[in-house]
Structure formats: C-alpha cells, structure tokens
C-alpha cells in the first residue's frame, strides 16, 4: 500500500503537524499532509503518498520511531540543563 489516508482518533494538530513534519523528512515520501475535517469531530486524517510503490505504513512507523527518539533527546537535554546549567533563580510573588 503506497498511498494511504490514516484516520487517527482522539488526536488533533498536536500530533498531526508533528507527524506530518517528520514524515516529510523522509526522502521517499512524495506527499504528506493532514487535516482536521471538522472541529467538533475528534479525529484527524493523515495522508501519505510514497515514491516507488513503497509502503506508506512503513513510512508512518519509522516517523513514529524518529519522533520518539527526538523526544528522548529533548527530555535528556532539558534535564541536563536543569541539573547543571547556570540559570537565574528568582523569587516570584504570587
């Protein structure tokens, strides 16, 4: 299946746009886009079209893996900066 539209339930722009970006980073992807068909329906449509008859599902899977490793890098660096960084600490009145 080289072209597919995936309907993802209970998801929104949060996942739609990040996944779209990561899938478009794949050079074998001819087209990728997402839409929120209606604001009161809680799902998104994610369209993937591949070159050379490659599998769209595989492209989605690898993008999910890449996104996960990206999150791990961000998490690690944040915790490192919080632990060792020299940032300003201040008292905020509420």
């Amino acid at each position, binding site marked *: 299946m080289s072209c597919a539209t995936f309907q993802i339930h209970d998801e929104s722009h949060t996942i739609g746009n990040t996944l779209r*970006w990561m899938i478009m980073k794949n050079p074998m992807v001819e087209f990728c886009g997402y839409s929120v068909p209606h604001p009161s329906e809680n799902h998104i449509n994610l369209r993937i079209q591949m070159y050379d008859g490659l599998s769209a599902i595989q492209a989605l899977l690898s993008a999910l893996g890449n996104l996960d490793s990206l999150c791990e*890098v961000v998490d690690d660096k944040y915790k490192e900066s919080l632990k060792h960084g020299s940032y300003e600490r201040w008292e905020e009145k509420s």
Partner: protein
Amino acid sequence: MAEGSGSLYDPRRHVRILSERVRDVSSVDYPGHFPGEDHSWDLAKFTENFHLEVQRLSQRSVEFDLVGVDASIANAFRRIMIAEVPTVAIESVYAWDNTSIIVDEVLSQRIGLIPIHVDPRRIDVKSEGDESTDRNTLVFNLDVRCSRNTKAKRGATADSELYINHEVLSSHLQWVPQGEQAEVFEADPPRATNPNIVLAKLRPGQAVKMELHAVRGVGKDHAKFSPVATASYRLLPLVVLNPDKPVPKESAEKFAACFAPGVIHVDKRSGKVRVEEKNLRKDTVSREVLRHPEFEGCVELKRIRDFFLFHVESESAYPPEDLLPEAIQILRGKIAAIRQATEALLDEDQTMDSQDAMQTD
C-alpha cells in the same frame, strides 16, 4: 550566546520582518527542497544541532530556550502543556446552603476554577459512569457563615473589622480524607494552591455550605484542568545593521530609542551604534525603526525560525520545571499508542496481501 544549530546570521534561519508583512515564515528544510542537499531525518545531526538551555526559574515559572527544532515540535509541547497535562480540579458541587448573593451555578463555576494543590499522578482518572472511590475523587467541604464582630471598635468601617468571615476564600476549603487518602496524602495534604482567592462576599446571617468533589482531568476538556497560567513561546529577535549604510550620528539616540532598552548600544564619543547581541531577546520587534525615513536601509529586522523562547507559568501542583518533561512523556505516550495501532494495521495489511497472492495463484 549559544546559537545551537549554526550561526544566527544564516539567512535560511531568518523570518523577515518587514514594515507591513512578515516573510519566510514556513520552514523548508525538507528533502528535495534544496537541490543536492540532504535534509532527511538524521538523529545524530539533530542531537548535535539541538540546544536547550534553561534561562530563568522561579517557584512559579520557568523560561527556557529550545533551539534547532521545527515549529511543529515546539508547538506540540506548548499545546500539550496547556491542554493535555492532567491536573485535579473540582468537578461536582453539592450545595446544601447558599444564602450569599452569588447564585449556586455561578459560585460553582468559580469554585471549579480554584487550582488545587495535589499531585495528579496520585489520582486515577474517573471515566464517565465510574463510581467515585478514594482513588479517583477528593472531597472538600466549604462551610462558612458570616456574623457580626461584637468586638469591633467603635467607628470601624472596614468589612474585616465589622464582620467575621465576610469573604469566602479558597483557604476555607477543608479537605475530607476518604478511605486510604489520609495515609496517601499525609505528607502534603490537598489544598488550594493559592489561599487568598475570594469566591464570594458575605454579610451577617449569610452562609455557604457545600460539598465539593475534585477529579483528575485535562485542559482540553475544561480550562480549569489546565496546569499552566500561560505556556507560550516567541522567536528570538535579530537586528542586523547594514554596514554600507550606517546610522547617521546625529540620530543615533533616536535609533536606539526605536528598540527595547539595551538592544542597541550607542558609543558616546563616536556616535556609532552596535547591536548588543546578549540583549536581543529583550526586543519587542515593534517595527518602530521602520517608520522613520532616515533609517531606511540601515537595518533589517528578523526572527530566528528555529529559536524558541519558552515561557511557562505553572498554576497547579506541578513545579514549573516539571511541565516540559510531563508534556514530553504525554507526547511519547501518544506516539506509542499510534505505533501500536499502526502495527496492528500492518499485520492486517500483510494478511490481506498474502490472501490476494493466494487468489491469483
């Protein structure tokens, strides 16, 4: 200043701010956009370019720089912090008595919005139809009666002197432990994060008596569950002076006044201007400088497309520095769920393919 991925002056990273429009907003770092360049995903390259630095931290808010990611990623973190990091808030109000001038439904709405100090990770989600248990519901009592202060001094005019309990405050919430809760929350009993929120004003004889049930929820269901007061980002401003057209000496001060204080440094003796790079983030990009004809061509205003200055203000039980890790964890949870569903789809697809092959044989 740490630039993260390469130089701040790389024109490919620039969003151009012109007098009446903004250009080059979208990122174009995709394979096939620049001929002969590889822009496919590369974790090692990303890790090298990626830069994250906490700038300021207080007990209520955190500011950090997120550099070298696409807007879609930064925006996902922001959206999740606002709408999908769970907190505990009051969902049901049982009004036994309310003789204040605020009607039940309005008072209930106000009570729902009180940020509750309790670690949401210790409370289960109560789905629709679930029975309330000590694992998914916290109970508070609100019992306030206003009376005249008989000891008030003669001629006193202030409400606080004349009356006792003239205000219903968030500090009046009394937690009523249920079942095992007394043990679980012993160290840090649930309470209102801010004790000074006025919920209603009372006069002698008026009273409010209510039972409040708090549950765990997320901001996309109701804003009262949002753990942040604000979670926002802006792009790092950049001011680029044109070396071929220096700012006229006589209007150097006027030029500096077009920017936020500290962004432009004017040399007192020579009248030359230069950009103070470490103060660039203070600029508001007001475009004031573009309004004056004498500065035309002297300066370009830009923003760095992948340099996000986050500002997150916690208004919940989470310490502000915990919100990004929570958001990342939630995003990874979503990814895992979609991956599971996709793998199931892949199995289905393969069995369908093999069936097709059998039929053609």
